[in-house]
């Protein structure tokens, strides 16, 4: 500590230790906030249309169209260490091989607390397709609205805000 240089060196070294401790405390403090908000999700029967595939000229593929309503108040998830929320609507179904599939059909990024009251009615943003190109033999699917809390410092946490009570049926449409 005898010269200016050693004083600067010492202070910056100790300051970095203090900052690390502070960041660790902030990351740990977000575990104190255990809000688990619930919302409502309603889905009308999913209509399935035959369509062309992008890649193969003669192959047909079925596309599902999901119309849904979401109402959820997610403001409790915003605390001092929340940077943003990633909200996504997931379709869950078992295919013919007995494999559980989950497909994200809609998502939204919520950056501000003021935008965290979600009232949304609309249809899927992303194509809802089965990898075997057909939803036949898939009787129905469940839907859930999930969120991912992204903090400034710390770990990502996941949660579920809403889930359909009963399975939603697929309805096959021949004509557009």
């Amino acid at each position, binding site marked *: *500590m*005898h*010269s*200016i*240089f050693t*004083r*600067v060196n*010492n*202070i910056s070294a*100790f*300051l970095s230790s*203090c*900052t690390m*401790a*502070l960041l660790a*405390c*902030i990351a740990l*403090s977000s575990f104190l906030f255990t809000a688990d908000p619930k919302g409502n999700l309603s889905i009308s029967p999913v209509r399935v249309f035959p369509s062309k595939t992008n890649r193969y000229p003669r192959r047909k593929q079925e596309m599902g169209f999901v119309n849904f309503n979401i109402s959820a108040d997610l403001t409790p998830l915003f*605390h*001092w*260490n929340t940077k943003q929320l990633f909200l996504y609507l997931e379709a869950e179904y078992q295919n013919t091989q007995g494999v559980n599939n989950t497909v994200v059909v809609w998502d939204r990024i919520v950056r501000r607390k003021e935008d965290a009251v979600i009232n949304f009615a609309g249809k899927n943003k992303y194509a809802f397709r089965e990898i075997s190109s057909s939803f036949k033999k898939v009787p129905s699917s469940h839907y859930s609205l999930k969120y991912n809390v992204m903090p*400034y410092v710390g770990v990502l946490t996941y949660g579920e805000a809403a889930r359909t009570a009963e399975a939603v049926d697929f309805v096959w449409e021949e004509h557009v």
Partner: protein
Amino acid sequence: MSGNVLQEYLEGKIDFAGQKLVDDIVRIWLIAATAISFVAGFALQSLLVTFSILGLSTVALLVVVIPPWPMFNRHPVKWLPVAETKKSK
């Protein structure tokens, strides 16, 4: 000679008692600032508050501690007088 003055000015030497004092000030100040910034930020639910308190208090600490203020030079080392020897005569 002027180079020597500039060098001394930039080096900013303080005495041993001053070094102990600086060490104590830095440790207590930084730990207190960290604790206060966490509590204040948690109370006001704002990371902006946390890091502005930490940053501003660090700037204040640098002003207090970095320049060789007179209060860090109040105990100059007293050297023994040069012993008279036969050779030096």
